Every structure is written in C-alpha cells, then in structure tokens.
C-alpha cells in the first residue's frame, strides 16, 4: 500500500515533523509491501509537482507544526492551490499537527478547521493527531522521547493495517490536553529557578545573543 505524506514544516526534511513521520514510517513499513512517498511543501518551486502528487493519491497525511495558532503559510497556500476538478476519486485525508507548547489544546482550534476542510477538498476526514511538547525533540536524549517515538511507530503500524489512526494512541499522544494543577505548580517552581527557559537560554548563549534577549528593535 502507498501512503502520500505532505510535510508542511518550513524546515522541510530537517524538521520535527519529518522526525515524527519517520517514526510513523518505521511502523507503517513493517510490511515490506508498504511505501511512503514524501512531498515537502516548503519547496515552493515544486508546488505543481506536489499538487500532482495530491491529485493522484488515495491515502494522504498532511503533517505540520502549529504556526501562530494554525497552519504555516506554506500549508495554507498549498490548500488554496488544490483544484478539486483535477481528480475524481475521493481521498482519505488525515492530519498530524505538532506544536512546541506542552499542551495539545493549542492545536485543537485548527483541528476543527481541518476536519471541516475535508469535503471542500473532495476528501473524507480520516482522523487527526495533535501532539504538544515537540520543540527540541531531536536534541533530547532517547529515554526522554521514547514514549512519543514509540507511539508514532505504533500509530504507523496500525494505520498500515486499518488505514486509519488508532483512537487510543491518538488520545494518549494528545496528553496533556491541558496542564494539570501539579504541572502548573512544577512550571512555576522551574521558572523561579530558571529551568523553564533552559533550552532558549542555551541557544541564545550559543549565538552570543543572550545579553540582547530583551531587545525591542522596532519601537519608534
């Protein structure tokens, strides 16, 4: 079986979206007859090729990071360019939306749009995964991310068998949907000892920009 995946991250092949879908592929391709074809929406000069791939596909996943509370501009542009007169067969369309925020709630608003988009694209809605806490996933130690990567592999394996997402895995990936009281207390403690922003401070210092971190460059 062939699955067509559109990667909607502006960072393309090096993105966290690609990282996650690669783990999905591990499960999906346990059956050697299965194949995933990838198309990168950040390659604007390949839009025609990407659209052709969409028209020909039967099973599609669009994966992207949450950008200012919805899809990145490159994904919206791709959606706008889809011409439903160019294909006959109704496709199955699934989505994976990942974000840097710890709670999946941030992605729930765009999820509602994406489901309603399906009939507009002559597609049947085939489920959505919303996953928070993804920023920095590629630099975290394996033990810290193994639950997530394993879940994506399981998700792929199930998709290969049933042609849809497993509801239990989707539900677990969505956790935490909101921050629990305990997590909020922990975040406040972490903030007070400067741990919340460890990742950002590390990157700012790497780039000799730490002292300028509170700059307000555009005030008249």
């Amino acid at each position, binding site marked *: 079986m062939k699955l067509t995946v559109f990667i909607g991250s502006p960072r393309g092949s090096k993105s966290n979206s690609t990282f996650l879908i690669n783990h999905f592929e591990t499960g999906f391709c346990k059956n050697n007859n299965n194949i995933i074809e990838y198309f990168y929406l950040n390659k604007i000069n390949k839009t025609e090729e990407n659209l052709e791939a969409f028209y020909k596909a039967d099973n599609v996943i669009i994966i992207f990071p949450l950008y200012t*509370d*919805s899809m990145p501009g490159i994904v*919206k542009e791709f959606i706008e360019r889809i011409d439903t007169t160019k294909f006959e067969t109704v496709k199955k369309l699934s989505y994976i939306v990942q974000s840097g925020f710890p709670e999946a709630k941030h992605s729930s608003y765009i999820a509602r749009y994406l489901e309603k988009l399906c009939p507009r694209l002559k597609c049947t809605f085939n489920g959505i995964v919303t996953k928070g806490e993804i920023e920095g996933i590629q630099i975290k130690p394996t033990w810290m991310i193994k639950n997530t990567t394993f879940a994506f592999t399981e998700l792929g394996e199930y998709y290969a068998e049933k042609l849809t997402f497993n509801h239990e895995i989707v539900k677990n990936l969505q956790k935490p949907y909101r921050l629990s009281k305990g997590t909020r207390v922990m975040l406040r403690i972490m903030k007070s000892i400067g741990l919340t922003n460890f990742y950002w401070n590390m990157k700012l210092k790497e780039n000799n*920009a730490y002292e300028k971190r509170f700059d*307000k460059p*555009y005030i008249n």
Partner: protein
Amino acid sequence: MKITILNGSPNGDYNTLTERIQSLKMQKENEGHSVEEFNLKEMDLAFCNGCWACWWKSPGICAIKDDIESILRSVINADLVIFSSPIIKGFTSSLLKKVCDRLIPLVHPYIELVENECHHLKRYDKYPDFALVALKEEDTDKEDEEIISDIFKRFALNIKTKVEFVEFI
C-alpha cells in the same frame, strides 16, 4: 490613534472587501486617526522559514531581509491593527497567514503561564489591539465564522493582545 491595516487580498475579484476597507479607512481618518495600509500582494514577503533567528540570534529581528521590517515597525507602534482577507477554502488567505507567521519576532521565546496555559512572554511593553475584516466565500457558514474567529482570538492571545472586533462581510 495609530491604525495599521494589513490587506491580505490576493489577486482576484475582492471588490466588496476593498470597498469595505477603504470606507473603514476613510471613517477612521475622518475621526482624526492616522491610518497606514499595507497592500500585502504588492510587497516582497517570503514565508517564515522557521529559522528562529528572531528568537536566538538577533532577538526581535527577522533574518529574512524583505519588506517585513516596515510591517513589524508599523504593527508594534500602532494602537489597532486591522487584518483583512477574503476567506479562501474556509480560512483567511495564505497571503495574510504568511504575514501572521512573520509577526513572531514581536514576542519572546520564553514561556509563561497565561490563563493556566503556556504562552510566549511579551517582548514589548505595549501591543496593539487586533481586528479582522473577512470577506465570506460562497459556502461560508456560521461554523466557519466561529472557527475563524476562535483561531483569530487565539492568535491575538499569543501575540499578547486582544481582539477588538471581527467582521464578516
């Protein structure tokens, strides 16, 4: 009051929206406000490439050298920003979304709790209110309007401000 209009109409027949924006602009100017309008389709604007230089290399400054700087400066010094766009396939235009993504340098990468949720910290002391004027497409229904309004409110919350009004025409 300083007002910035971000006109996100791409090429096409969006005369109703153009007329509404022009009448709104005239009304605000007649009330004594200064209005700066950006016609996004005529500007050199790239998509955000997710490099995050604006957060960790040159804090607050976008690394892509195109026309975004004039927009960022106008937005952060305004009292009200009116986003304007036709609805295309159920959502505001990719042209407008491109600019929304590029507003990220206006906030700080650090995270804080707001209404018990994680959000970015302010970079600036003051932010303009946001408003949206959207032109309905043929199949726009009440649910579409609700979805667009809700996402716009979330966007405002993350850019450290609030929504003054949302208008569908």
